[in-house]
């Protein structure tokens, strides 16, 4: 009993010490502890988790809570102003912008890039399959139904392709991966553009639908002759066989982070002022381009109501598109090319609170 009393005393003493230690610097520093909340894309989640925790290590007064709820839900939460920023793999459409208060009310900041890999189950084929846009569209339209179709064999000279039926597997849930993939197909095939179109969820002409990357990959693993599309990080972490895709320079390129960065660089010249662009199907003479790629954006209000929070938010985002890019490397995220970083920084500088820009005009160190 006596011992317990003593330890209580000791404990409360420690508590007081700890409290003063925590409170003092917070009171002294000009910037108070800030917690920023964001919601959206699940594709961004691993990168954000890693990068924001690194940021908090370096700047202990800023914390970022990110909820991986899906791009559409992230945009909804931003519009309802329940979060400080949203993250999305598809730029907000005109209807969503209108709901958020107009085209100028929100800025799109590209924060990272992803590539979509085409993966298949053909145990007898050892070397990577080579495909071009027309052929991929033909397969997913249901026009090419056998693996030894002339169109596929012509692209793969010397490879003994089996006569197996092609079983198409697609994502059944709305997804940014689907958006990038269908945008690519619409850019290479007129038939696809008019019959199916592009979006996070489309009317697939053929195939089995499965939920999530693990769902489609699971189906492909089981079914010989199956083919699907998954984001690059999922394909490489699970060592799935991926196809090389013919780009505009005429080379066959395996999906890679570098290929996505090259694609973004080629598309940077044609980027509109609001930075809303789907780059899948990008054209250029760089042989490294992997065309099935796409941006992921952070969306935030141009006019920040809370100056302290707004200041912290643009500072974090500025860090994310500069120094923060390195944390994506291990996770198969493609770094933004310099041309896009410059445009994104300029866009961040337009964010204001009480009419005052929150980010200094000089680029961050």
């Amino acid at each position, binding site marked *: 009993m006596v011992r317990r009393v003593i330890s209580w005393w000791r404990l409360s003493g420690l508590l007081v010490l700890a409290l003063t230690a925590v409170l003092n610097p917070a009171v002294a520093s000009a910037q108070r502890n800030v917690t920023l909340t964001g919601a959206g894309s699940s594709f961004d989640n691993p990168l954000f988790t890693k990068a924001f925790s690194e940021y908090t290590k370096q700047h202990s007064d800023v914390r970022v809570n990110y909820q991986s709820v899906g791009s559409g839900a992230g*945009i909804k939460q931003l519009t309802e102003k329940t979060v400080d920023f949203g993250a999305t793999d598809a730029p907000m459409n005109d209807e*969503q912008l209108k709901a958020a208060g107009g085209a100028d009310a929100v800025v799109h900041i590209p924060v990272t890039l992803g590539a979509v890999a085409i993966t298949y189950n053909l145990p007898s084929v050892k070397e990577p399959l080579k495909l071009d846009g027309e052929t991929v569209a033909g397969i997913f339209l249901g026009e090419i139904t056998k693996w030894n179709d002339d169109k596929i064999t012509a692209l793969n000279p010397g490879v003994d392709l089996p006569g197996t039926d092609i079983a198409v597997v697609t994502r059944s849930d709305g997804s940014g991966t689907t958006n990038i993939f269908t945008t690519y197909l619409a850019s290479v095939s007129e038939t696809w553009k008019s019959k199916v179109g*592009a*979006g*996070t*969820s489309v009317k697939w002409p053929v195939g*089995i639908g499965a*939920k999530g990357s693990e*769902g489609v990959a699971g189906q492909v693993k*089981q079914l010989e002759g199956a083919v699907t599309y998954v984001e690059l990080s999922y394909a490489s972490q699970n060592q799935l066989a991926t196809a090389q895709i013919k780009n505009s320079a005429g080379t066959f390129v395996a999906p890679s982070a570098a290929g996505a960065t090259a694609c973004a660089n080629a598309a940077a010249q044609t980027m509109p002022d609001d930075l809303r662009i789907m780059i899948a199907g990008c054209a250029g003479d760089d042989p490294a381009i992997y065309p099935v790629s796409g941006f992921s954006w952070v969306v935030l209000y141009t006019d920040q109501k809370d100056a302290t929070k707004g200041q912290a938010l643009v500072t974090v985002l500025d860090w994310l598109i500069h120094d923060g890019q390195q944390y994506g490397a291990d996770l198969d995220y493609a770094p933004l090319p310099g041309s896009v970083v410059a445009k994104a920084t300029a866009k961040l500088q337009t964010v204001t609170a009480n009419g005052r820009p929150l980010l200094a005009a000089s680029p961050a160190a």
Partner: protein
Amino acid sequence: MLDTFVTTLAEAQRAGRRPRRWWSPRLADRVFAGAVAAFAAAIVLLTVLIAWELWRGSAAARHAFGFGFITSTQWDPVAGVFGAAPFIYGTVVTAIVALLLAGPIGIGAAIFLTELAPRAARGPVGFLVEMLAAIPSVIYGLWALFVLVPVVRTHLQPFLAENLGFLPLFSGPKYGVGLLSAALVLTVMILPTVTAISQSVLAAVPRGQREAAHALAATRWEVITGVSLPFARSGIAGALILGLGRALGETMAVTMVIGNRPGISPSLFALGDTMASVIANQFNEADSALFTSVLVEIALLLFVVTVLLNLGARLLVWRLTPHAGKR
């Protein structure tokens, strides 16, 4: 305290009246009755609020497509054209097939457990059955995707196609995933519900009645069909209705094995989709107000279908059991 209460109560009874205290049993009765009435009202209110919210949220979709929404088979999110028929079809077919399979198996198992199984086996088996009901549906889904679907594709579908292939029900390409696999995983999922409740109801059959039948030289079969089952009929119907409810609303496990391709085909081998699974698949990334509203309308239809099927099942029970109203 208790002594005084008992004495007062005794005195009061002798005097022909109840004790008058602020906590008089009559007041306590009233408070209790009021409280439970409020709980019951809360359930009704909740149901009404859900229906109202679904009705309100689906306004845009109802205005855009009208009643044609229920019969249309079009589903094209890019073009903004939506119809619910394939999803209603998928939900109803998978749930009913599951009930047709789980009903006889579940009731049979319950009869075995209450009437035939050695007494020592009843407890453990009953416990295992109830444990099955507690497994999360995503686990059933994973099991179905990696174990059930390959078996269906390589064994069950070829077997059915070979022996019953003349029926349109068992024709078409054998993907493994599809309506059949979804119905089978639902069967497994509702089986514990049907078994556990049927077992409790059968166990409640008065011993005297059973013994009386045996005394009249009835065989075991006659006791089961003539005494136990008629007595438990409405309770077993309740078990089936609860099972049906779970099958109609099940989302995760079904999504994982049904193939998620909206369409109406007479074959159980075909890919399909259900109302619950399309909502789960599409809600997060629904990028237009109309699309969201369409999903809310599908939720409303699921609500309506559930109510209709439940009412149908109840009517059936009333027709079958003349005394059901008295119990």
